[in-house]
Each structure stands twice: as C-alpha cells, then as structure tokens.
C-alpha cells in the first residue's frame, strides 16, 4: 500500500490557498480601497482592524503560516513542472504556466511587501497615520509603483485562476461546460479585483 501523504499535502495546499489566504487577499484589498475615500477613511479602517484582540497571534496563525505553507509547497509544485507551452499553446496550458510564474512572483512580492509594511510597523511602532504616509511615500516612487502594480496583478491572477483550479481539484466543476463558465466568472472577478487594486495604488500615489 502506498501512502497518501502527497495527496493530503496537495489538497491542504489547495485549501489553504483559498481559506484563509484567498480570503485575506480580498479583505486586504477591501481595507486598502478605503484610501480612495481619503486618508482619514483609510486610517479609520486600519484602526478598526488593529483593534481586533490578539491580532498578532491571529495574523501569524491564520495568515502567515498558511501563506508560507502555500508558498513553499507551491514552489515545490511549480519547479517540478516541465512547461511545454511551445508545443501545446492551448489556453489552459498557458494558464497552467502563468499560474506557476505568477505564484513565484507573488511569493517574492508578498514577502517584500510584508517587510516593507507590517514588519516596519512592528519595529518602529508606526501609528496608522504614519503607515498611510509611508505607503504614500512608497507609491510616489515610480519604480515602486510599477513593482506594486505587477505584484498586485500577479497576486490577483494567481488567486482567480487558482480558484478555477480549486473548483476542478475538489470536483465541483466537473464537465467542460461548467469549467468554461467558471473560466468566464473568474475572468470577471480578475478584472474587478484588479480594478480595485490598481485604483487603490493610484490613490496612494496621488496623495504624494
């Protein structure tokens, strides 16, 4: 009898990508979107978040650790694939390749982003207003602006295409028709989330 360890690991990787990592992405984009209503609105929603009790424990347990598992096991998956888009230039095969490429970029970006924001907050004890100002300073730099846009698009793509894949991997969308409909739905979600994210980034930049 063979073991079922890799099945378990792979399914855990898939699940954690959605709950909690995917949910956190949506929540994060939503909170930051407040900046489009002005700095005060953003500061207010950050303060609300920071008011959650035992926040650090929750952050580590329900965001950081699942994210790291998803990221590290994801690297293992990504680098084991032998991409062959040049022979099979089909839509799904290109998505398969992009899912791996965006995953790697997102992981690097997110680690940097955590360092540049969350860790700095912890080290220097920034207030939410200072955090807003620092973020404005980052986004006012054109290079960082581009880095953040690329990081955002990769993260959102990885989430949306990952959701498509998640639904297949758990046996929710089975036939080709449901999978095609799912492609359109997640395509639309990708556009919507990208719009929200890009607007947020530009709103930060415009305050600089």
């Amino acid at each position, binding site marked *: *009898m*063979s*073991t*079922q*360890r*890799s*099945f378990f*690991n*792979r*399914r855990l990787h898939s699940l954690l990508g959605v709950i909690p990592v995917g949910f956190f992405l949506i929540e994060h984009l939503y909170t930051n979107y407040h900046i489009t209503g002005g700095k005060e609105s953003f500061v207010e929603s950050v303060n609300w978040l920071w008011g959650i009790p035992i926040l650090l424990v929750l952050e580590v347990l329900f965001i950081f650790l699942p994210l790291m598992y998803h990221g590290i096991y994801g690297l293992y*998956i990504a*680098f*084991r*694939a*032998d*991409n*062959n888009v*040049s*022979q*099979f230039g*089909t839509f*799904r*095969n290109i*998505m*398969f*390749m992009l*899912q791996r490429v965006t995953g790697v970029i997102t992981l690097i970006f997110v680690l940097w982003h955590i360092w540049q924001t969350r860790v700095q907050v912890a080290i220097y004890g920034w207030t939410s207003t200072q955090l807003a100002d620092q973020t404005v300073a980052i986004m006012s730099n054109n290079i960082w602006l581009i880095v953040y846009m690329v990081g955002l698009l990769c993260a959102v793509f990885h989430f949306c295409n990952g959701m*498509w*894949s998640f639904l*297949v*991997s*758990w*046996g*929710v*969308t*089975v*036939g*080709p028709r449901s*999978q095609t409909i799912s492609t359109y739905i997640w395509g639309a979600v990708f556009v919507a989330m990208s719009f929200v994210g890009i607007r947020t980034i530009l709103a930060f930049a415009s305050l600089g």
Partner: protein
Amino acid sequence: MSEQRTIRLIVTRQDDPDSRPYQEEFRIPYRQNMNVISAFMEIQRNPVNAAGEKVRPIQWESNCLEEVCGACSMVINGRPRQACSALIDKLEQPIRISPMNTFPVIRDLIVDRGRMFDALKRVKAWIPIDGSHDLGPGPRQSQEESDWRYELSKCMTCGVCLQACPNVNNSSDFMGPFIVGQVNLFNAHPTGALNKDERTSALIGEGGLQECGNSQNCVQACPKGIPLTTSIAIMNRESTRFVLKKWLSF
C-alpha cells in the same frame, strides 16, 4: 518527365538506451497517400541518409496500422501522436520525428511504456470476477452509463497523454492522466463498483491524481478523444468523498 518529388524527414535517433540521441535527415521519393510508417518502410528498403551514407534502418514499433493499438506513438512535428495515422500529405515538411522521451528510449523511436502497465496494476484496473462457481448475470447498466464507459474504454495505453502532460517528467512520479480515466471506467461499472474504494485509494497514492495541475493538455492530445479532464474532475470528487468518509470513520 517531371522532377521527382521527395519527402524530407528529420529523425531523432538513439542507438541504445544509454547512448546520446542524434538527428539524421532522410530524403525519400514521394508516393501518394503515404503515412509516417510507410515512409519508414521506404527507409528500411533503402537505408541511406540525406548525405548519401548507408546507415542502419530506423527502428520503430507498429502493429495495427489503424490507430487502435497505440504501439506507434511518437512525436511528429512537435505533437505526440500515432505514426500510422499521420499522413504525409497533411504534414508540414521537413517532418521532424522524435521518440516520446517522457518514457525511457530503447532505440530510435522505440520507447518502454512499461510504467503505464505498472500503473494499471497498481490501481487494479480490472473487474475481479474470477471464481469457482457461476456468479450469474451481472447487473444491468443504463444506456447512458454504458455510453460514457464506452468513451473511457477507448484508451489504448499509447502514452500520448503522458508525453503531453507537463507534470509527467523526471522530477515527478505522476502515473499520468490515462490512469484516472481507467479508474473512472472500472469504478463506474456496476460490478466494478464493488471494489471502487480499493481503486480510489490506490489512485490517490504517491504519484496519483493529486499530481494533476489542470493544464488539460491530455484531453487535447488524446487521439481517441477520451474526456480525460472530466474523468479527472469526477475522480477528484470521488476521492474527496472517499477521504472524508475514511477520516470520519476510524
């Protein structure tokens, strides 16, 4: 008399399992309605390469010559497919032919697809009905069920889906897309369903179903048009259910 038309073939060859592959070009006289196999036969008759040197004839496997045995699978102009149904008139020239290198190459275009047969044994891709006494007639199947199973039963173990899949390679132990279709085939049979947990359990073992990354190349490449990705999703659903049942009932 008009000039003699020729066919250009560039073949990736290998003398034995351990030697390095190399390319050799051949030019053979054109005839109507040739396929890749008959082009190889032409080379066998007159084993001279494009440089005019006498070489060992190309080695390949073929059997049915009507795309039902799967023996003649190879990569033709970048696509894994059967050589017997690859018509020269429909191929762009020079025709580039190489072995399906996802498998160990034995010689020239001959590969060892043994791992596929090992996988079939691992997942018990059969229905155990042997016994010392008459078991009587099996349960009836609906037309719909049997139509679905008929599609899955077309698999000829040719290996094309393994060659097409980005997750079947040296650093992965994935048994290949075909195996999922086969488990689906036997699990969907009313008598075969009696052993369905055994098969599902083997299917989610190391190198199993979980290695699929949904590139869906298999369903594009399958010469028999087997709905492999549908089978994969069906088995994903079955194994989710199987695992939950197992964990909740220890």
